[in-house]
């Protein structure tokens, strides 16, 4: 479990905390191999502001709430982050849409998005389509 200071009062089923806890528990994330960066997440939840730090050193991962220097500061609503960590939002689309902003290194954000999951229902395969079906949709020669 990550070293968190003071503010670990969230419910155990909280998606954001669970996501960061799982990431921290890995200690080393192969998808961050060779990367080094610190990202600060400023997460707005109504009137309160929650801050998470993700520190990556050559693929080794640390999660903390402790104030530190950061290569990138990412700001968003808690609802957005919840949808990112369970795969309902895509990070790049959310960024282009203005659902989050980044100050500092874009590279750090591109690194981070690698560990976000895909949409929960997606299976990666679809039923085959027969040649007859394709021909029925198309013009003859």
């Amino acid at each position: 479990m990550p070293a968190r200071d003071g503010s670990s009062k969230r419910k155990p089923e909280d998606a954001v905390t669970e996501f960061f806890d799982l990431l921290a528990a890995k200690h080393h994330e192969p998808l961050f191999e060779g990367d080094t960066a610190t990202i600060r997440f400023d997460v707005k939840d109504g009137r309160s502001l929650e801050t998470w730090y993700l520190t990556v050193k050559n693929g080794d991962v640390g999660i903390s709430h402790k104030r530190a220097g950061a290569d990138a500061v990412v700001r968003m609503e808690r609802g957005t982050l919840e949808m990112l960590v369970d795969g309902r939002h895509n990070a790049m689309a959310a960024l282009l849409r203005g659902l989050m902003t980044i100050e500092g290194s874009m590279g750090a954000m591109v690194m981070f998005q690698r560990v976000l999951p895909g949409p929960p229902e997606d299976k990666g395969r679809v039923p085959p389509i027969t040649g007859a079906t394709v021909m029925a949709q198309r013009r003859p020669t």
Partner: protein
Amino acid sequence: MSDDLVQILEGNTFVVSDKRGDIEASLTDPTGLFSFDTRFLSRWVLTVDGQRLNALSTDDLQYFQTRFFLVPDTGTVYVNATLSVIRQRDVSDGFHEELRILNHQNQPVDLVVKIEAASDFADLFEVKDALEKKGKYRSRKVNGSLVLEYRRETYVRETWISSSEPVQFDAKGLAFKITVPAHGEWKTELDVVASLGSEGSSRTGPVGVRGQHRVRRDMARGLDKWLERAPHLECDWEPAQMIYRRCLTDLAALRFSTLTLTNRALPAAGLPWFMTIFGRDSIFTSLQALPFVPELAATTLLALGERQGTRIDDFRDEDPGRILHELRYGEMTAFEERPHSPYYGNADATPLYVVLMDEYERWTGDTKLVKQLEPEARAAINWIDQYADLQDNGYISYQRRNEETGLENQCWKDSWDSISYHNGDLPGFPRATCELQGYAYDAKVRAARLARQVWRDLSYAEQLEKEAADLKRRFNRDFWVADGEYFAVALDMDGRQVDSLTSNIGHLLWSGIVDNNKAKAVARHLVSPKMFSGWGVRTLAEGEARYNPIGYHTGAVWPFDNSFIAWGLRRYGFKEEAAAIAAGILAAAELFNGRLPEAFGGYRRSATRFPVEYPTACSPQAWSTGAPLLLLRVILGLEPIGENLVVDPGLPTRIGHVSLLDIPGRWKRIDAFGRGRIDVSKFLDY
């Protein structure tokens, strides 16, 4: 693109205007200021005392700079204009326009100068498909700037317009009330900046993309340096110089910096509509340009590596290890109305990524980068085995999971009718096209070499070599059309051969997957009258049901395709055939003034005497730009072996003497010389 339009660009920002410098776009009209796949100005019209201007001349000073000489319309040629107007425009993260008004009279003159300014903030996809906007527009004044704004929920895009001289802003744009002294001049500097705002982030100034402006501009200024650093070509055949210089200059214009690798450049796919990263196009172009500007390959590997797929995402056709197809930044991508954030729907870029990595190391000896990218290479190989084998038969197949906005054909021949049986029927999905198996084979052979020599993982190398050998054996059995003596273009969903004769067989030679005893028949087909037009190899052979000389992938000739086919022929020792293809494509390049189109008609050379251009939106197109470069490599027979560059020329006689001096690589710099000794005339006169 129509001839009366002027385009200048920098990175992914470009301006398309008329000869006067004016922009009057409709939703479907492709003029405007575009940046990040969004139109930031759709109207920019200059008037002096209410009158439009006429263009005397338009000079493209650089690919990022144009100067317009204008005069007011006097209505008749008998009245001399007493004013001249000079507009000079530079593209950066928007554009900078210097506007000068010269008074040629002996007395001062009072004038009202107006520029109408407006933006529809259309997504490039909307300009192509004429779609309606969903957000709201407004304009306001902030700190002496006019700000045009488009807002849809949290999505905000703004155009900031400012002037160095006092200006009045109104609902229509900018107005200047000025007095120009006798024989004097008035001047203002206008800045138009594209801003990627978000709610509350842009109260005081435009939100640009930090650092981009400066870096890109320095790259552009370095055009002379870029040309100087490339190898020097001398050739008896005069057009060679012109073609070579055109290719290098166009390649410079096609350089594109990503948001994460701001001080490096990779080749974008085409100007102006494809100024973005395309996995396939960036890789092929980097391969073609390797002997000349190897740094493009390094950036391509880094940029595609950092966005390699990591999850299953059906909308984006993303899988772990897959290399992206196309990345876009516009509104439709932002709202997931298009999947380009990025879209992964291609089946070739992933194996080709490994091919490029190995070829790059063989040329440059940059083991540091190849060590750094070992995880990406392994993930790519893993994609081939774990995710691309959709039929569990040991072959790469493709079938889109995004049936609405995904790509049906995920190979380079991506139009709907490109893959057909001899009788013209279209196969179902998944489809396993043949060249994909070649790329997979080559990727494994090359990854094995890297595993042995750079990553020092012997057992991985042995495993890959075993898998490659097995793939080659199966492929030569399953894809070989015995009675026609060529390889089927694909296997269909039942494992049946899709039996048309296509240019894809040339790529198979390039990949080395063809058994030696079958290569001769393949080479014979490629230069036979059925396939070779005299200018180049057709995408689909004459005699196939869907053959059409002006069919995009069903008969047209693609210079890029031909450059890899020629490389493949050389790989199997067919010097004469490779020289014939090079001679045909280079002759076409001469007629296109050095700038080969994406594709041209497959008509017989003897029938048209001039290659008939296939109408496409982009010029130059990156992999067409790279084709003459790769052909030069092929006919000089340049091949890195160990620490040395081997030169083994196989030049058409017409070329005469060739010297390519200062070829960069792991040997530092080396010169190559050759003399044309191959008579290719029997191939060129079909």
